[in-house]
């Protein structure tokens, strides 16, 4: 640690950063990957000192338990104790609550892997460190070449996540001339066979599946059983390592869009991150870059921000930097994080399934339109 930088430390006060993420609760595994990525990023951005220009970064970790009430309470506690920067959370609902707190209390907030589009452009104080739903959807669009005249069926759960994906596809691919049809399934539904039938009846050119949660195994089985893979390419987002086995036999037939998997980008920064992660006994995973980027942004904000929120916002807006996935830009207008995405397939390796990169999708190609315009 760089704790003993005597003279400097006495002139420049420490900066307190509040990290709120799931340590327990349903998304604890994501929280863990994010946390590991953050530690690696902090190491990288501060050259292992944990300090910026001699100023110690004091990090307080708080567990949101996947519960917005807890998260808000923790945030208020942290803000009350003088925290200037908040970051974190995998849970979209918590991210929007924290964004709200950031605005009410004028602190900087850098949201975690939560994918909701709502965080982009929500207010001046809120930034993001991961990708957003729109980027996922746009990546899916890259699988059918020219969408004009094609028919796309979105198969999703009838939740904010699923609806967001449908809206995204309508905006992205519909905007490019595709006919988009949604097959939305009640979140609690357990029987997907009839819906697989419904997809078949629609005679699609591309099936986009946006699914979260435990029922995905049963869902994929149903699609395979009813022969959906025989009629059109099926695209979906590739989740974290633990889900690779969830697709069963169907895994080989699915075209995956992907935010990140270990080894996807091959950049130097990635190599540094993986080395750092492995040293800490962790493995790179879907949300490792989000944590890494968050650390980079925080360090940058402290370094250039002049200790005021407005200064930090100014420092981050429009900032372009090298990160795990390559070159990343914080768009000034709405704080969207412009970054490349990946096309991936799963291949069987013994008893396991492993991802294999098919193509990298340019950051600009999948950049969301400016929010609020």
């Amino acid at each position, binding site marked *: 640690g760089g704790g003993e930088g005597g003279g400097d430390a006495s002139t420049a006060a420490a900066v307190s950063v509040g990290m709120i993420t799931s340590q327990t609760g349903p998304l*604890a595994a994501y929280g863990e990957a994010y946390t590991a990525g953050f530690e690696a990023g902090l190491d990288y951005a501060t050259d292992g000192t944990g300090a910026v220009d001699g100023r110690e970064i004091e990090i307080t970790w708080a567990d949101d338990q996947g519960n917005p009430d807890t998260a808000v309470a923790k945030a208020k506690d942290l803000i009350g104790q003088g925290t200037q920067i908040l970051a974190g959370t995998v849970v979209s609902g918590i991210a929007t609550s924290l964004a709200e707190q950031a605005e009410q209390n004028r602190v900087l907030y850098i949201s975690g892997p939560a994918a909701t589009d709502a965080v982009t452009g929500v207010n001046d104080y809120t930034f993001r460190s991961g990708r957003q739903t729109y980027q996922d959807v746009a990546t899916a669009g890259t699988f059918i070449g020219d969408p004009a005249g094609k028919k796309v069926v979105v198969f999703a759960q009838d939740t904010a996540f699923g609806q967001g994906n449908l809206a995204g596809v309508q905006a992205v691919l519909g905007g490019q001339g595709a006919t988009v049809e949604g097959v*939305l399934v009640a979140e609690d539904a357990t*029987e997907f066979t*009839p819906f697989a039938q419904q997809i078949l009846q629609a005679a699609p050119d591309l099936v986009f599946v946006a699914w979260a949660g435990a029922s995905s*195994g049963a869902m994929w089985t149903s699609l395979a059983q009813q022969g959906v893979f025989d009629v059109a390419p099926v695209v979906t987002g590739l989740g974290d390592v633990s889900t690779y086995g969830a697709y069963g036999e169907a895994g080989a037939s699915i075209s995956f869009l992907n935010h990140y998997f270990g080894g996807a980008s091959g950049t130097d920064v990635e190599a540094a991150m993986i080395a750092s992660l492995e040293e800490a006994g962790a493995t790179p995973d879907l949300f490792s870059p989000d944590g890494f980027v968050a650390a980079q942004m925080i360090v940058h904000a402290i370094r250039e921000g002049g200790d005021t929120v407005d200064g930090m916002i100014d420092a981050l807006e429009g900032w372009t930097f090298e990160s795990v996935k390559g070159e990343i830009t914080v768009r000034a207008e709405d704080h969207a994080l412009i970054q490349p995405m990946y096309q991936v397939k799963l291949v069987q390796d013994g008893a396991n399934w492993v991802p294999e990169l098919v193509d990298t999708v340019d950051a600009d190609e999948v950049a969301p339109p400016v929010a609020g315009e």
Partner: protein
Amino acid sequence: MDTVVLLLVTGLGLGALYFLVASGLSLIYGLMGVLNFAHGSFLTISAFLGWEVGRRVSDGTWLGLGLSALVGVAVGAIVAAATEFLIIRRLYERHIEQALVTVGLSLASVALFEGIWGTDPIYTERPDWLTETTTVLGARIPNDRFLLIACAVLVLGGIVLFLHRTRYGLIIRAGVENRHMVTALGIDVRRAFTLVFAIGGAAAGLGGVLASVYYGYVSAHLGSVLLIFAFIVTVIGGLGSLTGAAIASVLVAVLQQFANFYLAGTGDFVVVVALAAVLLVRPRGLLGRTT
């Protein structure tokens, strides 16, 4: 046409799963007045242990599945009997407290399962035949639905016979009404009640293993997902009526399928409306006793 067949048969399959959970629930409630919120946990633990054993012996084969089922049934019965013996028994006839204890148990056990097996679902292997389909009247029906239906029918028949053909059945039915009087006739009623829990737990255990086949995973929340519907089915069928629970299971599941498909995913709402409607017309459920 084939869509209708598909909806019907898959509805029956789902109904079978509901029934496997509801049968134990209904039995325990009807006979002992205990609203058992821990029933979902019986199911979950059976599914987990069944899976652990099955995969170690022979993953994804009939032998493995058979073993899982056996272990599931045994675990369900033992855990349920132990629950009754160690906890419920101390609160005989204090029905509210009994229900409360089971609430506490279910909260604690789900947390414990999460601690042991993690929060993510664990995907399971099953025999190939079960992942294939059979075409019935043009509809491609997944084979595991047939397995579910067959098991549910067997369980229904078995329990009905037990209750009406055996002395234990008689004791249980009497003990529900007036435990003191049954003991005053020289019968150790507590043993009968433990037995009821064991039977209910065994049905849930089988349900747990089959649920893991149906969903393709085991997770700490497997039981809670099914429990609410099992409750609804139990009430619609008439508390304590096994046949009622069976009929209601099928009705609810089929209704749910059709509503989900044709009425824009409104299956859950339709079930709620059905529950309210049935209770308003027949406050004691379809086959509930009318005294």
